[in-house]
């Protein structure tokens, strides 16, 4: 077993012990396993991929096989303390609608995404090419990422939707923070973590 990804460790710091969690696109269940151990949460993961579902079952993680793009209509309002989605927002058909649904189902939402405003992305575009960066390694034609955004875009969506940003962590691709990110976040942040709440 590799150590928990640092962004997942950071997320667990944002979660109150003993809470109810829904993890959208939970993969092999690493985050939920970690949260169950360290935060005594009661969690469920949503996952579409057969192998990941089997891996969650093998690990004893509650997993529900479903497509996030089909929506969260099966879940009642405020039925979870947190709805979490890591590195999947940009692959959704309508990320704005899914975020709104997450905020309906969860009292708080934790979401992470790659920042498309990073200087490597901008450099590639200035050079006349779709970016291929260490954080976004796929080619334009085979990428799963169809709705990439910059930090500024995401902030604008939060403002327009009147979502409250409770916490934010901006990291490089090794999940470290640093001076350059603090000075020019939209140029140097590679992975963004947000904790949101619906308009109060």
């Amino acid at each position, binding site marked *: 077993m590799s150590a928990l990804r640092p962004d997942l460790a950071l997320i667990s710091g944002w979660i109150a012990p003993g809470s*109810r969690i829904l993890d959208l696109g939970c993969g092999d269940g690493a985050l939920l396993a970690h949260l169950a151990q360290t935060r005594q949460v*009661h969690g*469920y993961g949503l996952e579409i991929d*057969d192998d990941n*579902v*089997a891996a*969650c*079952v*093998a690990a*004893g*993680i*509650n*997993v*529900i*096989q*479903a497509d996030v793009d089909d929506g969260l209509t*099966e*879940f*009642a309002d405020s*039925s979870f303390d947190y709805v979490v989605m890591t590195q999947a927002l940009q692959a959704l058909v309508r990320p704005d609608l899914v975020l709104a649904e997450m905020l309906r189902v969860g009292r708080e939402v934790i979401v992470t995404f790659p920042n498309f405003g990073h200087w490597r992305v901008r450099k590639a575009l200035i050079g006349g090419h779709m970016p291929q960066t260490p954080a976004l390694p796929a080619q334009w034609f085979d990428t799963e990422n169809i709705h990439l955004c910059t930090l500024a875009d995401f902030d604008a969506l939060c403002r327009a939707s009147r979502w409250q940003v409770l916490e934010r962590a901006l990291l490089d691709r090794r999940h470290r923070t640093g001076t350059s990110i603090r000075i020019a976040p939209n140029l140097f942040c590679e992975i963004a973590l947000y904790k949101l709440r619906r308009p109060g």
Partner: protein
Amino acid sequence: MAVAEGSVGVVTPQKIVIDASLLLACGQQLNGFELMIETYGELNAARSNAVLICHALSGDHHAAGFHSADDRKPGWWDSAIGPGKPIDTSKFFVVCLNNLGGCRGSTGPTTVNPETGALWGPDFPIVTVRDWVASQALLADRLGIDAWAAVIGGSLGGMQVMQWTIDCPTRVRHALVIAAAPRISAQNIAFNEIARQAILSDPEFHGGRYIEAQARPERGLKLARMLGHITYLSDTAMRARFGRILRDGDGQYNFNYDVEFEVESYLRHQGNSFVDRFDGNTYLLMTKALDYFDPAREFGDDLAAAFRQATAKFLVISFSVDWRFSPARSREIVNALIAAGRDVSYARIDSQLGHDDFLMPIPQYHAVLRHYLDRVATEVGS
């Protein structure tokens, strides 16, 4: 005879006599009854590794293995039960029974009512899923099993699994609910009603006293089964398997009502082979048990409230092309379990056939079953 790898080999059914009386949902009381069972594997010293298999509409106690060395047809769920199979008999002590009201040796319409000395026939009370669970609990007492490591069932069997977790919460550690529904739909009841009418209107039915009349409602039972088989396959599966293929190779229509299309041949074969092994009165009461199943009813139609009784952990499985018990119905179960705060995992298996897929060794299906039950085995120390 060498036992084939993965098979439990030759098995012998046992008849278990239960002396306790059982008050049924209909108000009648059975003063003792008999259940035919088969067991596979060994019960461990802690008596913690027992698994109960609940059968569906037409199933019985013969879930795995063979009844003799030259028996060619294995039990109905042999694909999943055996040493090294997902329900691993080298780890678990597996119990399967013929339900009360059945026609394969357990007390039911084809057995003698000790109080009258006559066959029960149509007088055998209509039993419910709840009654079955109560009878299975008495069986567990008899076998010295305080709690099942897992209760597993598909279709009507899955309904028994749910009822177990609600009625006997402390006696089920894990509940595996496969291709089931929290209650059946009007469409499903409608199919059952046509099946029942086919049997009831057969001139050979004789008000259910056909055995005494040395008759059998074969035509009705056959029709009921043919109808059932249409609902066990998807449109796509039927198209792929039979299309519009004619049995005669010359491609000409015969302009009569003999078997002509392959699908007719298939349905008639299914119907004919069913009447040899099944009883009309049993079919009637089994379909009624399906219709009546509705655990939420006693909890203000709130399935989550019903599941708050449960302490088991759940695995729910559905099949993508099953329209008789569709994935949406399994999601209702899952949603109620989540609302009740119960541990549940749900796998929606990409499948080919339809409702029948729950008996098929689909790799992803068996992988999920195996992974889940491996953890159960570790947990119960088998």
